[in-house]
């Protein structure tokens, strides 16, 4: 159990870090993040927690992809006329 607790806390920290760049603002992101973590705080089943951790890591990847695309699009719009 305690090892999972550490993983979950680390996940929360990493998600907070990813939220700094969120287009609708960090505060908006943090509030949502807290809500989803709180929603699942009563989950105790090992398997279920593992699945939630997996989902959290998936969200990190999704955010990364979104930021990359957003940056690429902004640059393309600003610097390349044919877009």
């Amino acid at each position, binding site marked *: 159990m305690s090892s999972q607790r550490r993983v979950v806390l680390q996940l929360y920290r990493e998600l907070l870090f990813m939220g700094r760049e969120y287009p609708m603002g960090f505060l908006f992101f943090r509030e949502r993040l807290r809500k989803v973590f709180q929603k699942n705080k009563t989950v105790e089943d090992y398997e279920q927690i593992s699945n939630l951790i997996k989902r959290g890591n998936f969200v990190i990847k999704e955010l990364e992809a979104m*930021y990359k695309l957003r940056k690429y699009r*902004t640059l393309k719009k600003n610097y390349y006329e044919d877009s």
Partner: protein
Amino acid sequence: MSRRILVGCKRVIDYAVKIRVKPDKTGVVTEGVKHSMNPFDEIALEEAIRLKEKKIASEIVVVSCGPSQCQETLRTALAMGADRGIHVEVPNPEYEGLQPLAVARILQRLSEREKIDIVILGKQAIDDDCNQTGQILSGMLDWPIGTFVSKVEVEGERINLTREIDGGLEEISVGIPCVITADLRLNEPRYATLPNIMKAKKKKLDVCKPGDLGVDITPRLIVVSVEEPPVREAGVKVEDAQSLFDVLKKEGHFN
């Protein structure tokens, strides 16, 4: 291969920030504004990291010139995969007058001192949009240069580069040592994750001054005035096709 790559990482106002011009028209507001690494430099760094992963290079040195906050930019670069950083300290207000000529001179001295084989830079920075540093540096070092590069292939002692030019692509081959400036389509830079940023804190980061390198950074150009782009004018509503035609004719769109 023990080739060393130097990558320039400029700290610029973040691409997503709405730029505001200072009321006295001497520049743009930078205080309290989010900064990040110049996106074209990120692309340059990503390419260097890929060359290292392919064992074509052995070490990546990242450089940033500017105030102390540049060290954050260098940390990001180290987190992405660079090996060590050099911060050339240029405090404000000198930094505001730092121009491509001086930066190129700094990079030249560092390339010589660190025994660099390949310099990779972003084609331009998104703040001043100069697009000069790589070109000037290539001249100073007397090394070949590939600008606006969208593909890099190393073949023995030569590098085949694909350049984005007006209306098409150009393929060139340059010898090593050389300078490369990265275009947008070269690659997709990786994201500096939190665990990697933590690990990067252990990497080496040297600090020096332009004077230590024997570089005079006195500006050669004077910024006369910085102004906002013209505001888009309001449109007009027209009643029917005839009045639309009349308006367009008045504006000179028909003969």
